[in-house]
């Protein structure tokens, strides 16, 4: 019977029947999912919150009298300063958390974009290539709206702090009182530079304009460094007495983690800004209607992603430095981070970073499609992928494994004889170094698609490159294995030769490459825009992952303080003083990231209201490239 229906001409009718059913079911499913999600997100009242006391209902005749009594009492009550106030619904912690995170994300974007806009403009000025100048201008296009959003969220955050944590905010302001006026002043300069830089595009002498860009960057970085002083002070206070009295504002600013946080944020901002700009380009690519547009935005996405990944590669090392300073400030804090409540957070981080590397490589592989004659290189993808997968797996191997009783019994103890070796620092350091090396190789492979080296020593050159790569990989792995046989103090130091061999390899291979492909014959042209559409979704994915990673790292940095406002000095006595579960934290981060992308969508939209980019008028001069739509995504 079913056969009859299926095979008959009723197929269409069945489909029509199934459609509404599927629709209803899907709607119900979505409602259910949403309710589950919201239900799980319900803010958990911490146990120290005072239980509401339910008194007996006052008798009717007594109500008026009681009300009057309450009024007189209220009149007689002297004013006391509130220590904490509750934010309705989600509670103060989550409110502050998400507002601060949003402020931070926009600020990161606003700080990063001028940086590479400036650099790209410099390149454009030096090479005289118009394309770079236009690209820089388009990056800047995103700035003004983001800037005002950053300022709005900054004000929002300030008010929230004053409302919800009045006492603590007051304390922080008293400690840092000399820094606030310069901060506001710098904001003026920032606005000045930003608007002159943006609106003055093409209206000044290029060098003057570049000077404005430099000023914008310097002022922006200074703003960030001042704000960093406040928050690093909360984590690693200095320059105050045990009771919190200020001894030296200078020390309070130059505390243990201030400099590493500056550097870490500086690099991370570039990576983040690059990825968001790439996502913007991807969005425009997908919207594009002409080949010219596609070519342009493909190129823009590529540059943005290139900036992001290049900045991302040194980030782990900046992170090590920060962690080292945290340990130096307080062992307790360091151990809480790596061994205590937050140790599992780094497994989540491993998943994120593994995804980032994989996606970045994947984008490069897809990018080979831009060039004709790539088939010979396609076969390497498999091996690169295997390398990345293995490193990813090693990095995501938890140190303390979750297992059931029977599994542990089968394993013969809670430490697995093989996995136990993969969960420790030696293995993870090795994995991340190999990941970086592999990504670099992917990039190199991408670079040489469609090119054939013609220099006389081509063979030797290739062999040398391969040899350097193999040597670096060998050194990294050898030191990783060697780490198991030496004491911890020696082991920590091993990461330095590992990193330096990777860096050496990258530099020397690039150097060879430059000479190797000097005057190379091209077997296929690079056709910007001729890339599968799916690659643009990968760029968006990378941006989301970066954002989420920043959210997570923001959580660990501030969550580390646990029940302290200022670590070891000002104690958090609010009901929010507990450290929430990682599951709850990741939910908050997810929601914040969604909010950010909603808002950044608005930014993109506003940016698109602007006239069509200038290059439209000069399109005739550019080489016509492009691709038809790929239907499959």
């Amino acid at each position, binding site marked *: 019977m079913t056969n009859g229906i299926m095979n008959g001409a009723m197929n269409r009718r069945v*489909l029509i029947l199934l*459609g509404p059913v599927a629709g209803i079911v*899907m709607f119900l*499913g979505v409602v*259910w999912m949403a309710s589950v999600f919201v239900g799980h997100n319900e803010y958990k009242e911490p146990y120290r919150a005072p239980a509401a006391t339910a008194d007996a209902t006052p008798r009717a005749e007594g109500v008026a009298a009681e009300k009057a009594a309450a009024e007189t009492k209220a009149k007689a009550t002297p004013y006391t300063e509130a220590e904490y106030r509750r934010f309705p619904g989600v509670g103060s912690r989550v409110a502050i958390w998400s507002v601060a995170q949003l402020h931070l994300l926009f600020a990161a974007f606003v700080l990063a974009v001028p940086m590479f806009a400036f650099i790209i403009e410099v390149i454009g000025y030096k090479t005289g290539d118009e394309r770079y100048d236009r690209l820089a201008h388009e990056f800047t296009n995103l700035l003004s709206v983001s800037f005002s959003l950053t300022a709005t969220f900054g004000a929002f955050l300030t008010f929230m702090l004053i409302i919800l944590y009045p006492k603590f905010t007051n304390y922080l302001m008293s400690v840092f009182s000399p820094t606030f006026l310069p901060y506001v002043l710098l904001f003026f300069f920032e606005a000045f530079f930003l608007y002159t830089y943006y609106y003055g595009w093409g209206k000044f002498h290029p060098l003057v304009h570049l000077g404005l860009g430099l000023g914008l960057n310097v002022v922006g970085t200074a703003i960030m460094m001042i704000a960093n002083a406040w928050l690093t002070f909360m984590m690693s206070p200095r320059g105050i007495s045990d009771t919190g009295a200020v001894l030296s504002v200078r020390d309070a600013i130059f505390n243990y983690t201030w400099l590493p946080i500056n550097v870490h944020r500086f690099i991370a901002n570039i990576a983040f800004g690059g990825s968001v700009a790439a996502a913007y380009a991807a969005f425009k690519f997908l919207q594009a209607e002409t080949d010219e547009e596609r070519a342009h935005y493909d190129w823009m996405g590529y540059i943005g992603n290139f900036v992001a990944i290049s900045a991302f590669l040194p980030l782990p090392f900046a992170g090590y430095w920060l962690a080292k300073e945290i340990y130096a400030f307080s062992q307790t804090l360091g151990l809480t981070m790596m061994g205590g409540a937050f140790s599992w957070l780094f497994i989540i981080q491993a998943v994120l970073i593994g995804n980032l590397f994989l996606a970045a490589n994947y984008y490069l592989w897809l990018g080979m499609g831009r060039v004709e004659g790539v088939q010979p290189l396609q076969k390497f993808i498999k091996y690169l992928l295997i390398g990345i997968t293995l490193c990813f797996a090693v990095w995501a191997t938890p140190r303390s494994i979750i297992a059931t009783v029977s599994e542990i019994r089968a394993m013969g103890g809670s430490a697995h004889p093989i996995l136990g070796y993969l969960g420790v620092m030696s293995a993870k350091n090795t994995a991340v170094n190999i990941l970086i090396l592999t990504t670099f190789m992917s990039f190199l492979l991408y670079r040489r698609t469609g090119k054939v080296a013609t220099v006389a020593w081509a063979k030797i050159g290739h062999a040398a490159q391969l040899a350097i790569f193999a040597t670096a990989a060998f050194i990294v792995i050898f030191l990783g294995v060697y780490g198991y046989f030496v004491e911890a103090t020696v082991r920590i130091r091993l990461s330095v030769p590992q990193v330096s061999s990777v860096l050496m390899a990258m530099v020397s291979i690039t150097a060879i490459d430059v000479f190797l492909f000097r005057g190379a014959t091209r077997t296929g042209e690079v056709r910007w825009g*001729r890339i599968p559409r799916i690659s643009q979704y990968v760029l968006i994915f990378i941006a989301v992952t970066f954002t989420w990673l920043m959210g997570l790292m923001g959580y660990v940095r501030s969550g580390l303080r646990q029940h302290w406002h200022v670590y070891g000095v000002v104690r958090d006595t609010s009901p929010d003083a507990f450290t929430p579960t990682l599951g709850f934290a990741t939910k908050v981060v997810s929601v914040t990231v969604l909010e950010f992308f909603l808002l950044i969508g608005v930014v993109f939209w506003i940016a698109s209201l602007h006239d069509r980019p200038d290059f439209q008028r000069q399109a005739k001069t550019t080489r*016509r490239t*492009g*691709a038809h739509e790929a*239907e499959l995504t």
Partner: protein
Amino acid sequence: MSFRLSGPRSSLSAYAAVLIAVSCVATTRSVRAAGAQAGTAAQLEPGRVIYLEYCAQCHGEKGDGEGYAASHLHPRPRNFTTGKFKIRTTPNGALPTHEDLVRIIRRGMPYTSMPAWPDLSDQEVSALANFITTFSPDFSNPENAPKPVPLPSAPRSTKESIDQGKKLYEENGCVKCHGALGRGDGPSAPTLVDDWGNPIRPADLTQRWTFRGGSSREDIFRTMSTGLNGTPMPSFLDALKDEQRWAITDFIDSLSEPSGPGYTNVVITKHVDDPIDLAKGTANFESARVARLPIIGQITEPVREFHPPATSVTVQAIYDAESIALLVRWHDMSAERTGKNGPSLPVPREEEEEGAPAGVQVGKSPFGEEEVAPTGAQQAGKDPFAEEAAAPSGPASEFSDAVAIQIPSQVPTGTRKPYFIFGDAQNPVDLWFFDLARPAPLQFTAKGSADIAPNDTGDVTGVASYEQGEWSVIFKRPLRPASGAPFSPGQFMPVALSVWDGFSRERGNRRGLTVWYSLYAEPENIPSAVGPMVKTALLILAIELAIIGWVRWRYASRGREELGGARLRAGGATAGPP
């Protein structure tokens, strides 16, 4: 073994194969029997080396069963000089074949101190089997060359054969020793002694996994056919026909849980709506799951017990609004309801440490356990240890049976539990002790074996009954007593048990016990799986339909020829040069 391989589906060819195999075994054996004894010292040397390395500590360097450990072992290690071997394929009283020896070395004897030796190579085991035969002069006599009895392959076990087996079991006197339900509690069971006068117990047929010769149907059939040399277990080779022996085998096979002992590590306590009523006895526990826990000997504190008669207990637990109740059951050859027992009573020290001298006189166990009660002819063994008042008159025992449940006095917070043998100084345990000669249980608090004090608040009540070789003891206590650890739903509480068998003169430290297991109070309401299942299925279905609908919507109308063809490649391929 060839006959083990043939399954119930065996046909003529299998039969033939068995016959050939058996005859082969017989011929090779006879050849070897003649050859082995003539073997030179050099040929026997490898076996001797292995024997001294692995076997001599129990079986003795001279093969007389008097190694270092012998005094602690029960059943005693085989004395190879007598030429008596329990597990054979040869007639009762005859010597075993070489293969019999090899098999028993390889497989060991379950629930005794004879382990399996899976790691020795075939040559090593064979050499060992050859060497063992040098201890007894019987092997060198060619007339004794063993001739295996025919052991036909197994017919299919049916309900009829089991019923027939049950009848034969009752008719042929099995009941006398093994008991009506096969629990090893027959009327003559307490009087049994082996050929050396040591008391011996009939097998508990409901625990197939403890059979010394193996637990398969073929093993049972072989034991039925050839008997166990040196024990009261006779051979039924001549008395019963093959089919009849197979029928009894099927019956015995049906007595045990088919899946084996199924030891667990958690006792799940079910919530019951009706109040627990001790008068209802075991009927209270119908809904509760049965947890079987292995019993091991208390082999640490003096006086030690190396072979407790009970090999396992089963526990069921329930709780109602106010109380928790545990039902403990175990098999006991005979109920000792007179005399006295207690967790801290001094124990007669009648063995031990230095290893009993060889040639122990009949009537007194060299290692103290399995002492036959005064009903038998072994009065000699009784009095020297009785510092208590003499037992009541009649067929009374001096030591009563007893059982104890042990839980920590406080719910453990961290990972630290009290030491499993009656706790330790820092971490006391509560004992719910039931001397089965008394009507009700008592409570003790113990801080180690040497520090046990009565602490009876009257909280713990209980009833006990003995039926057909099985004790059923119920303990009941409030969930949240005035003193002692409370039970709460959803929590795990460590629990351990001890069982004393008065017949074996167990008391105080000499007992069988378990290590810590967990008692889990299952919450009253367990969420149903139906809701989540339906939700998941619907969600997946929705996603599926969405994908299929989308794919069809996109591709179905465009004609088949395009599918997977040019249309799909549209992406990059069509983007040619301008």
